[in-house]
């Protein structure tokens, strides 16, 4: 195991965040606060309660998920794409590191940032609405699993992209719509047929639902299903990254 190598990558990536503290931490906190003001206060005052939870509190898990997904993807994809773009990737490729070690470094750092950010947003939310976490262990489990899974997904995008546009296009065209349609701001049970069924094909529904359950014990789908979908997505991404490294896809050809 190249322990020093993993540590070097991890610290390098974390230092990158330190340099861009404003955009990595302050901006998600501000945008989350804005969501609270707009959705929680303005709209929430008319909606009152969903399944026994105040609307402001109801959207907290969804908002954290929204940040977790977008930040994991953008951190991890940028982390690996940028060295490819500048050419400094040569050093990584010539270093005695296995693909698992490279992943632990890059994905570990991206996921760590997301987790820290998720917790910061949770704390921020505490200023706006009374918080209650029914299952702290499962809350953290969903937080970590989702961060890792979407950091892996971001890593794949960073390997696949051959331009800055492609780096943006998947988060913009796929992830953001799926998140907004995934029950971040509402329970999918309020959707009219057939949309409530169609929504079940959206993987984000399972993430948000499971995460929300860990807070308030209310869920759109069963927790076991949420957990399975999250783990399956993580394993799927791992498989794709493994294949990419094995064949040298976009890296060593």
């Amino acid at each position, binding site marked *: 195991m190249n322990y*020093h190598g993993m540590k070097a990558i991890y610290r390098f990536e974390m230092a990158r965040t330190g340099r861009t503290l404003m955009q990595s931490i302050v901006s998600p906190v501000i945008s989350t606060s804005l969501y609270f003001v707009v959705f929680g206060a303005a709209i929430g005052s008319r909606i009152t309660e969903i399944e026994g939870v105040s609307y402001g509190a109801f959207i907290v898990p969804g908002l954290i998920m929204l940040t977790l997904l977008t930040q994991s993807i953008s951190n991890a994809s940028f982390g690996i794409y940028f060295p490819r773009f*500048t050419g400094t990737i*040569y050093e990584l*490729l*010539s270093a*005695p590191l296995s693909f698992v070690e490279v992943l632990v470094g890059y994905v570990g750092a991206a996921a760590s940032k997301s987790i820290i950010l998720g917790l910061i947003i949770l704390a921020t939310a505490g200023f706006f609405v009374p918080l209650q976490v029914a299952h702290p262990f499962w809350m953290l489990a969903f937080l970590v699993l989702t961060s890792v899974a979407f950091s892996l997904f971001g890593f794949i995008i960073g390997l696949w992209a051959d331009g800055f546009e492609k780096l943006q296009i998947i988060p913009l065209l796929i992830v953001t719509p799926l998140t907004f349609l995934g029950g971040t701001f509402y329970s999918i049970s309020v959707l009219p047929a057939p949309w409530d069924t169609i929504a079940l094909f959206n993987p984000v529904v399972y993430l948000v639902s499971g995460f929300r359950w860990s807070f308030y014990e209310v869920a759109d789908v069963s927790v076991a299903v949420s957990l399975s979908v999250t783990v399956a997505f993580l394993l799927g991404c791992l498989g794709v990254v493994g294949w990419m490294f094995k064949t040298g896809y976009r890296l*060593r*050809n």
Partner: protein
Amino acid sequence: MRPIIEIAGLSKTYASGFNALKQVNLDIHRGEIFALLGPNGAGKTTLISIICGIVNPSTGTVHVDGHEIRRDFRATRSLIGLVPQELTTDAFESVWATVSFSRGLFGLPPDPAHIEKVLKDLSLWDKKDNRIMTLSGGMKRRVLIAKALSHEPRVLFLDEPTAGVDVSLRKDMWEVVRKLRESGVTIILTTHYLEEAEEMADRIGVITKGELILVEEKAALITKLGKKQLSLHLHERLAEVPVTLAAFSLTLSPDGMELTYTYDIQAERTGITGLLRALADAGIRFRDLNTKQSSLEEIFVDLVRQKQ
């Protein structure tokens, strides 16, 4: 002793379908300085990239210190340091941080004393806290060398290390290379400055269009392929070369004071005796004469031309 690098039947076809290396076979001896010469696009960087693990080979094998580069990649890559051709550095990191990062990447625990020594040897010590983007091109090149030396490699690849580097820095750099070689490091370099290969290398390989067309001891290469020129400084100005001397294909300098005869030292007869006799017969007297061996550059240009 087994060669430090053994390359057998190595070919590379890029995804674009371009065949950049064709059946290359090459052994690099322990502790030597090997210069790889070839025109732009010959495949030098491709060859180096394969050995270092940056590019996958299409066919063939490479062993470094007896380890196969793909199966035992940890062992082979730990032994190798690479200074790439392009100036690819981070921008925001400090010199110290980026060099320490490289050491960690290659699996070694921190060793500030070693990093300090490397930076001092490369005259980078006073820049250690500067961000890389504030450095000049030549300094960045030295940072790349420092990164490659941070993990104490046994084999060092220098891909055109002196491109864009001024004369005094180039001298410093060769000094570093010499010291490394004295400590037993094997060095493989590519360069377009042929005098450098001539000055530095023990052996020279010539590659063109993906084929390794020649590998030779430098001294042997120069004598083997070298032509010599005999210059005769005349006593009196000569208007033109007399017809009686036509067989020697002499060239006369524009001022008419010097005759040059080119001969092959490998040839059975160099023709010098005959030339001197013919000159005497023609009544041409000379004050002085000297001979000059062709430089590697001339040999190299000849070789590549023959191949085309």
